[in-house]
């Protein structure tokens, strides 16, 4: 039996993207839909920082954000009905929501695993919540060494706060704390200086995200790294993986057969296929975009189950359509940002 599983894994790993696409076609033909693996909720648009690359354009609270009761009923209960995908809470800054502890406690009571993205500044205040309900994964933003990070985030002390948050979360028993760096034109060539800081921070891994011109990022397109920078960062990450758990995150797209050098699992874009994002006001989106034209519906009008099951067809149909290529990051593709080819080079183009 074990040997049989090994063989299946071998076959699957060799052709994961092809299997995925074939499976998508089969499911479409059979009128079936996968259950989501993760649902991200933008808890609020509020944030006390003003980072230029912010994909959610965070700042002030948005008009009509979901109330506590709406979150419990329309988000958490629906997720339970959808088979309990991982509940990823992001923002804005989720820890600025007064009711966050109540929501986390309720989600955990319903058996949901939870994860979060935070800038880390408010983590120590929530120590009791983290001790009681440690997230399975917590990502803390770290954009550079102290000077660069503080300058970019617009607040002195935010670098120190991020490092303190990493330590606190580890102390609270969070099994995987990720230091998350969004690679921009400003910091792409400074990662060598950041590496020792991340390695000594206590974080379990280093996630290298890639700037996407979404949200406030759309006003700062000059932050897009150059093709040379993309290649250098990819080469750098590949080397550092020998020493530390470094991953090129999904915004980089697929490196085809070379994925093994950059990440633990072969790349597949999950948008609308195995994951979706619920905006602060209840809009259901394929991924973290602020463009409401991409919304598949609002939780206040239709239940999440219904939106998930009937929506997102453009991601689930086969053929050369706008969203049918699971090997490209949809978010980058919709912005005409072909970073995959730039980062991994022409030979990888053949590979995918």
């Amino acid at each position, binding site marked *: 039996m074990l*040997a049989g*599983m*090994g*063989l*299946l*894994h*071998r*076959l*699957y*790993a*060799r*052709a994961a993207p*092809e*299997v*995925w696409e*074939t*499976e998508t076609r*089969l499911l479409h033909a*059979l*009128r*079936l*839909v996968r*259950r989501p693996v993760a649902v991200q909720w933008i808890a609020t648009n509020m944030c006390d920082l003003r980072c230029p690359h912010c994909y959610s354009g965070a700042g002030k609270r948005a008009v009509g954000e979901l109330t506590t009761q709406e979150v419990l009923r329309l988000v958490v209960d629906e997720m339970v009905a959808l*088979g309990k995908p991982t509940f990823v809470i992001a923002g804005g800054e989720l820890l600025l929501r007064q009711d966050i502890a109540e929501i986390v406690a309720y989600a955990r009571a319903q058996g949901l695993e939870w994860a979060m993205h935070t800038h880390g500044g408010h983590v120590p205040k929530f120590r009791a919540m983290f001790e009681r309900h440690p997230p399975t994964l917590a990502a803390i933003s770290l954009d550079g060494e102290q000077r660069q990070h503080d300058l970019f985030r617009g607040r002195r002390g935010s670098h120190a706060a991020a490092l303190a948050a990493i330590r606190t979360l580890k102390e609270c028993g969070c*099994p995987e704390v990720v230091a998350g760096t969004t690679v921009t034109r400003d910091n792409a*060539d*400074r*990662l*060598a*200086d950041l*590496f020792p800081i991340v*390695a*000594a921070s206590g974080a*379990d891994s280093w996630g290298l995200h890639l700037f996407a011109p979404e949200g406030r990022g759309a006003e700062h397109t000059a932050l897009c790294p*150059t093709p*040379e920078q993309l290649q*250098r960062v990819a*080469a750098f990450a*590949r*080397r*550092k993986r*020998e*020493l*530390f*758990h470094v991953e090129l995150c999904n915004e980089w797209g697929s490196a*085809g*057969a*070379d994925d*093994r*050098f950059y990440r*633990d699992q072969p790349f597949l874009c999950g948008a609308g296929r195995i994951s979706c994002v619920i905006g602060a006001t209840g809009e259901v989106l394929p991924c973290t975009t602020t463009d409401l034209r991409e919304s598949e519906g609002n939780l206040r009008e239709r239940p999440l189950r219904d939106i*998930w*099951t*009937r929506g997102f067809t453009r991601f689930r149909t086969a053929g050369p359509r706008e969203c049918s290529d699971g090997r490209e990051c949809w978010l980058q593709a919709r912005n005409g940002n072909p970073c995959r080819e730039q980062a*991994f080079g022409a*030979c*990888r183009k*053949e*590979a*995918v």
Partner: protein
Amino acid sequence: MKRWWVDLWAFAAALALAAAVLLRWRGGQVALLSSTAAPAIRLLALLVVFVQGCADRLRGREEPAGQGAAPRPAGQDEGQEMAETTGLSQHGEKDLSDATGPSEQGDEDSAMGTGSPPAPALGPDVFPLADEAALNRWARLVTDDASLPARAKQLALALLLVPEGAPAQDPGWSQVTASLDALTEAQVFRARWQAHVEARRTGGKETIADALALLAAMEALPLYHAGLAGYLWRRAAPLPASATERAELLGRLERHLRACEALRRAQFETGPIEFTAWRSKAAPPAGYSGLRVPPGLLAAARSHYPNSDAGTWATQATLDLAVATPGVHLLRAGQAKPLQPGQRVTLRRLDVLWAERPATLRHDELGDMSLGAGAVVTAWDVGARFAAAGRELVRERVAAARGGDATALKGLEAILPAAHAEIRRAVAEQAQAAGSPGLRTLLELFDM
């Protein structure tokens, strides 16, 4: 009789399934895939892909391949890399012996060449992990625990995080000692590496033979780890050595890195090794290992080894050169090959060039470099071999990149072996200059 009922039942089930699908089609309904049906769909998709793959292969279509796929293992293909090019003019022998090396290497030009290439004897090139027991021992050293990085990774990281020339009191050394102490089962390895750490800490001298002994101690464990192998390369690069000694170390490192590459590819196929260390204060139950090595890993790694290359060591941070005069030999992966005038060669960090008599090589941008009889050149010290004009070009480019010029930085990446020494000098001089972080990133791409 029984068989008849089974057939009928299967037929009815298939009919019901088809009817359900048809009804959903007609009604435009969609349903959530149940968790019990999901594996069946995955299996079906796998089968379809498998059959399609077989059909494609029969029709002679190529399989997708990445950078790491179908590589050209060194020692098997120099002929391709040394393909002759036309248009190269012949150059006379020039004396450029004013070039100074970035290291303790580089005063060997005075030795006379013997005329026969000094290839080292590396022994048979076979996958080094002989059996499942060796594979398990290796896996235990290199696999991350659920909450702790692998011990080999911790050691490599600790060693690399200690800055060059760090004083004996640097707190980084205690991290190194702790990482070594964690390798409780490796007495000989620990003693050998502890001696190396002591030499580094106190500024003691080491030789290329010491580096070879460190590598041998690793492989005896067996500890195959690209990070540690890269560290060893970096430590040994400036040490003085004859062509044969240098080629032996680099050849052994190349095999080591190829083995790491084969093991990485194998894990991508079979699934990763998983490891959970025993943490209870009570003794672990008899036979507890916490290690789950996927079945077929050893066979897969063995099958990949002959076609595995040394990863980034084979393909990145290289320098393209053209041979202008005869008498130069390339020592690569334990083999020595004479280079003919007009041939182009990609000098990798694992290669040695040896001149049996005074000879000239040329870089398209940096111009000529000359080798005296018996000269030994590697990617580490090649920069100092270029004529004054070439070295000046490197200096200017480094200065521009340090000032923040992105084009200059890109240009340096293409000539890293020729530029790394100047980059080191420049960032040491002005660590906080606008472009110094970028230059430090380039150095990382050369050193590992």
